[in-house]
């Protein structure tokens, strides 16, 4: 049994289904991201865990206790809001002490705890400042300190980094994870930023249209996306449409698929699901799983998992370069990652590639 469990959560607003049967298990001390576009239901999910929104059906279980009927103040959660929600009329210290005061913590103990937590987040100098006198990053850390000083069972973060500028956001990511580890607090993090989710999380739940599309480690999500949405949402990926021709006789679980250009693709499905002849599939592969096998154009694609493509765009990024290629005959655009020897990638020049690792996705 997990530390935090969402069981069959459903929620509609005015007949619009926002969450359809959400099931999620979070282990103690884990940092879990709810990743999705706006309207995916991720914030509603967080609101339900916090107790601001009541689910139509299903349960929220914290440490084995069904807290569905509990008010937010009874749930032992800490929350950091997108706008930080610092109390503007209180100093940093008073903001952080507020929760302790509400819980009737004696003054002396309160002071000691506030001091300690402000040291951890690196704000011991800002004790008597008002929130408006602090920078965005500092405000964010006050909000974090205010939530953590109560030693909550669960920490909820609602896009806390989205109001910071790009450089600071990067730095606060590391800060956030360090502080979360220091407290060992089980954390649920809502974000639309996949790179944020990837770099911070132990586990990521990808949400789309009120459903969890896939739940796994960042690596698992990247390497074995279950469907096109999950694959496309996390990292860069290439798709080529194809039709199943049959099983690969040599290796069990492998299928042979043909694209409209007659190229042969051999690969497996992610969860070992069975494919039938003439079923439409998407051949999916990451840019780094491509290797150049021939630099002379139009040598034909007789071998399986190879294709010829034309260079249509070269986007220099510094440490690497995105090469956009147009696949011959079928016309899909795919991305290749080049680290050196950029002179090979002349516009309108044809190259032949092999895909070393691919998956057949059914939707």
């Amino acid at each position: 049994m997990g530390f935090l469990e969402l069981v069959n959560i459903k929620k509609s607003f005015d007949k619009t289904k926002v969450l359809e049967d959400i099931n999620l298990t979070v282990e103690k001390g884990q940092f879990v991201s709810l990743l999705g576009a706006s309207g995916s239901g991720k914030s509603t999910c967080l609101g339900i865990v916090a107790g601001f929104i009541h689910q139509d059906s299903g349960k929220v279980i914290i440490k084995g206790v069904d807290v569905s009927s509990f008010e937010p103040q009874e749930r032992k959660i800490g929350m950091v809001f997108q706008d930080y929600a610092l109390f503007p009329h209180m100093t940093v210290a008073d903001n952080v002490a507020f929760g302790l005061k509400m819980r009737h913590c004696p003054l002396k103990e309160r002071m000691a705890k506030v001091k300690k937590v402000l040291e951890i987040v690196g704000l011991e100098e800002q004790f008597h400042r008002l929130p408006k006198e602090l920078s965005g990053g500092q405000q964010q850390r006050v909000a974090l300190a205010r939530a953590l000083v109560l030693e909550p069972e669960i920490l909820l973060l609602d896009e806390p980094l989205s109001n910071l500028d790009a450089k600071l956001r990067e730095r606060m990511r590391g800060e956030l994870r360090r502080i979360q580890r220091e407290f060992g607090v089980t954390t649920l993090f809502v974000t639309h930023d996949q790179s944020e989710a990837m770099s911070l999380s132990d586990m990521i739940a990808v949400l789309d249209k009120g459903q969890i599309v896939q739940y796994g480690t960042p690596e698992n999500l990247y390497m074995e996306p279950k469907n096109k949405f999950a694959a496309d949402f996390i990292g860069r990926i290439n798709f080529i449409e194809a039709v199943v021709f049959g099983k690969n006789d040599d290796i069990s679980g492998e299928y042979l698929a043909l694209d409209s250009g007659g190229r042969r693709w051999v690969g497996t499905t992610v969860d070992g699901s069975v494919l039938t002849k003439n079923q439409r599939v998407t051949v999916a592969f990451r840019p780094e799983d491509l290797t150049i096998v021939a630099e002379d154009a139009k040598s034909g694609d007789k071998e399986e998992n190879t294709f010829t493509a034309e260079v249509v765009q070269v986007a220099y990024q510094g440490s690497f370069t995105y090469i956009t290629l147009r696949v011959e005959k079928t016309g899909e655009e795919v991305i290749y990652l080049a680290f050196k020897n950029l002179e090979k990638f002349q516009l309108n020049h044809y190259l032949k590639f092999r895909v070393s690792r691919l998956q057949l996705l059914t939707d």
Partner: protein
Amino acid sequence: MLKKFKQLLNFIVLFLIYSFILAPLAVVILVSFSESSRIVVPPASFSLKWYANMPKYDGLFQSVKASTIIAVVSSLVTTFIGGITSYALYKETASARIKWLQSFFLLPVVFPQIVLGIALLILFSMIRVSNDWIALIVAHSVLVLPYALRIIGAGFQGISPSLEKAAHTLGASRWKTIWYIFVPNLMPAIFGAFIFGMIVSFTQFTITFFVSSGTVRTLPLWLFNYIHYMFDPGIAAVSTVMIIVMAISAYLLDRLVGVGNLMEITSGVKG
């Protein structure tokens, strides 16, 4: 050169507008220092005798006292009702009837005061309210409530909804959230509503004239009565004191909520 000319033009126009607005007040103040017992502008000679004379006026002190009591009580009542109603509206922000309700609460301002006065007079005689104090406090509260609602409502608009949620996650109950979060952040709006209510009530004539049976006489009623019989600079002296008190109130109001905000507030439903 052109810029200087524009600045000069600006200054002249502003000066004329302010003169137009303030000239009558200036005349009243000027006349109040006159020595003659007839109203002549400008006065031939000056004295403070009309101010010194003020305590002798029959019923003036009583009427100031009555006006003050009615203003304070009705303003307290409306600030309280305005506060809790604004809170209810704030909690319902998402619902569609909110705009409708906001417009509804503005109605007493939109109605001609004479209509409101007659309506209240009929109502009070129907339900047999014979006590002038109660009648006047209720009548003034009806008139003042929309202002209180707008001022405190605007105060609520400045409070992020996440503050309330944050307070709840930190363990504050609904009442504690009101006390520790809403009230301190709304303090300027609450004081502003109170002072503005006092001004509206204190200077109110039309409705008071209809509702009062004569046992309680407010300052505007006293002034009205006085010029019926006498037309001397005494009335200017009383008016001058009133102008000064109102000017101080307006200054306080500006410091608390800002006159700019107030204009937006009183000019109608936002958005």
